[in-house]
Each structure stands twice: as structure tokens, then as C-alpha cells.
């Protein structure tokens, strides 16, 4: 399947029964979606569950998909709703201890130079801590911006918030993260 083929066309092709279209679409979106969910819930088991549930709902709703809706926005909207439902059922944010656990679980191999590795590790750890410390709405806006490159209007559409609200969330998120990194 052509890499330049738009997601929306792939989704329509899958709805018509083209399995290769789904495989291509899945390969394109799996990492972005999974990280969005994982950074939202900060729990790998929950992220796995919500990730699979997101695709289940997409598969079930494939025939109702309309090309007018951007595929990424639609997919993330499904995930967003599931994340919100998850937070409604449990406590809203992960604690510092859980954040450390996630960092240990998700940590990548260190660089070759120990001092550089320590510096990089510290910087990533601070970013992760800053992200975890953000209110859920601000963190979500930030992750959507970073992971998916969504604009303000798309984030507003996806989360159901107004565009001005989304801008405020992004401003606060950037400001708090910068402040945390400068410490």
C-alpha cells in the first residue's frame, strides 16, 4: 500500500473489506495512539486494554466512518473518550511513585558516555515528571500536539473543548514544563 495514501482513504478501503488497508493504517497509527494512551493513563496494562478497545470500536464503527472526519482525529477521539471513562472509574492522575515505575519500565538504553547519559536521563525524567504533574486536560493537549501534530482546532474538536480553552491549556502546559526543566 502506498505510503502517501491518505489515512482517510485507507479507512474507507478497510470498511469495504480491504485488509491490507487496515494493516497499513494500523502500522501508521499504532505507536502514536499507544503513546497517547500510555502517557494519559501512565499504566501499561491499562494502556494495553484501552489501546485494544480503541481499535475494537474503530473496527465496529468502520462502516459509519465518513471521510469528512480526519482519521487521526477520529481515532484519538475514540481513545480520548475511553481515557476519560477510565479516569472516571479510577483516580484522575498518577502519583510520583507510579511515574518512576513507568520511567523504569519504558526507559530506553543509555547513551555510551556515562555523564551524557546521566544528563539525558535526568532531562527526560524531568520532562516525564513535568508531564505527569500536569492536569489531565493540559497533558492531553500537550501530548496530542507532540505526538500527532494536531492543531488547536483539531484538539478542540477531538476533546470537545473550545479553541480558546485549548490554547490556554497548551500555554499552561508549555509554561509548566519549561519551568520544571529549568529547575
Amino acid at each position, binding site marked *: 500500500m502506498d505510503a502517501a495514501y491518505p489515512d482517510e482513504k485507507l479507512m474507507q478501503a478497510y470498511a469495504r473489506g480491504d485488509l491490507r488497508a487496515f494493516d497499513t493504517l494500523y502500522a501508521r497509527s499504532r505507536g502514536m495512539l*499507544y503513546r497517547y494512551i500510555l502517557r494519559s493513563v501512565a499504566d501499561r496494562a491499562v494502556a494495553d486494554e484501552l*489501546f485494544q478497545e480503541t481499535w475494537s470500536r474503530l*473496527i465496529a464503527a468502520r462502516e459509519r466512518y465518513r471521510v469528512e472526519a480526519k482519521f487521526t482525529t477520529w481515532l484519538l477521539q475514540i481513545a480520548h473518550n475511553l481515557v476519560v471513562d477510565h479516569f472516571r472509574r479510577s483516580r484522575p492522575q498518577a502519583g510520583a511513585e507510579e511515574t518512576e515505575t513507568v520511567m523504569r519500565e519504558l526507559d530506553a538504553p543509555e547513551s555510551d558516555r556515562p555523564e551524557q547519559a546521566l544528563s539525558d536521563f535526568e532531562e527526560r525524567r524531568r*520532562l516525564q515528571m513535568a508531564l505527569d504533574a500536569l492536569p489531565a486536560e493540559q497533558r492531553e493537549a500537550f501530548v496530542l500536539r507532540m505526538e500527532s501534530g494536531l492543531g488547536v482546532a483539531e484538539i478542540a474538536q477531538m476533546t470537545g473543548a473550545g479553541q480558546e480553552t485549548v490554547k490556554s491549556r497548551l500555554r499552561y502546559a508549555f509554561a509548566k514544563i519549561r519551568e520544571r526543566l529549568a529547575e
Partner: protein
Amino acid sequence: MSGSNEKFERDFESFLSDDDSRLAALYRKLPQAEPDARLDAAVRAQAHHAIAATPARAPVTARRNWMPVFGVAAVVALAVGFAFRLGPQLWQRPASQPEAQPMAIPAAQPPAVPQPAETAPVAQKAAAADSAGTAVPESRAPVAELEKAENAASRPAPHAFPTSARAMQRVAAPPPPAAEAKPAMQAPAMAEPMRAKRVETESAGAPAAALAAPATQDRNASLYPEHWLANIRQMLRDNRREEALRSLAEFRKRYPDYRLPDDLRDLH
């Protein structure tokens, strides 16, 4: 207003881009978590299963789409069968005759079959009492019923049987004492209420002449005229010409004004 909004949007996008460029580099250093292979396999299997299950639903949908067509076909078949059951008198009527009087018998013409003496006064009394119609001779009963069916409720049938409850009661009144002494002649009078009931409940009942036919006459007399004629044709095909001629003569006596089909008209 819109110009300031656009400038604000540009500034904000610039702010995001500046922060994006700096933070995005750091963000990309975060662990790029991905779903494991087991999760990938589960999702793909689910997607493939959903598509594989879709063709199985297609015939069901097609069958559902055809259900109204089958329903209409069943109704049409039922209507055609009903028409065959009731219609021979209608569609075998000669086209040359006017619709309103296909087999009409002049009122002054005497009935071909002698009327039982006991029944005529009863019928006349009923006719006189019932303003909706007049009694007809036995041999005219099929004609009257046919006309009644054709005319529906638009106009009163000139030779229709009395159908009001009062008239029925009068027709069904106990026969005079003379009838008790002649049970064989009682049959027509006994048939009156039966015929009247059938006229009420069916659009095309058995011919009144058939109901009134004595048992000693041609057994085909109990049939509709068209069925009777069909049996005559069958007799001819079976080389029972004499029997067919007798039956035809009986038919002519019973239905003197019936326009015979070409193949039987000149048969003597």
C-alpha cells in the same frame, strides 16, 4: 477584528512552533513506547475477523431485501387463485353481450323448470314485503347472484333474492301443510334459507338451480354452468356422445338464455 485574530493565531502558532522545536526534541527522547507483538496480533486478528464475518451477513441482507417481493408475489398468487375460484362466470361471459344483461332473463318469461307450487306464493309474499328486491325463479338464481356481484352495492339488483332479515324469515317460514305431504317437492322451499344465507356470506355461491335440482336429474345440474359445460366436453372427449347430448339438452332446458360456447352451440 478578524485581522487581529489572524495575527493572534500566527503569534500563537509561532509560540507553539518555538516551543515545539525545543520541547519536541526532548519529547522524542522519551521512551517511544509501542504496543507489543501480542497486542498487534490481537488487533489485526480482530480486524480481519470482522471483515471475514461480513460476507456471511450479506446473504441475510439480500434475503431480507427479497422478503417484500416474496410477500407481494404470495398476495398476487392468492388473488389469482381466488379469481380462478370465483371468476369463471365473469370471464367466460360472451363479449358480444352487454355487461349489464349477460344472461338476463326477461321477467315475463316463465321458468324452464316447473316451480313447486308451494314455493311461489312464499317467494312472492317475501318479494312484496321486501322493497329491496324481488324473488326470482330458481333457474335465474345464478344470474341474479352474478348481477349482484357485478353491480356490487351501486344499485339494487333487479332480480336479487330478498336479503333483509324480515324477508328471510318470511321465505323460511314453515311451508304450508301441503308441503308436508310432498317431501320431494319441499326441497326448493327448504333451499331458500340456505341460498339466502349463501348470498349473504359469499360473493358467488352455488347456483340456486343446483340447490333446487331434484336428485333424479342430471347430476351436473348441481354444478356451475361453466363446470357443467366442461363436463359435457369431457363426455364428448370420452366418446360418450349420447350422454353428452342428454346433458346438454338438460342444460338448455335449465339455462335457456345461456349463450353456449361455439363448440357446443351447434351440437345436436
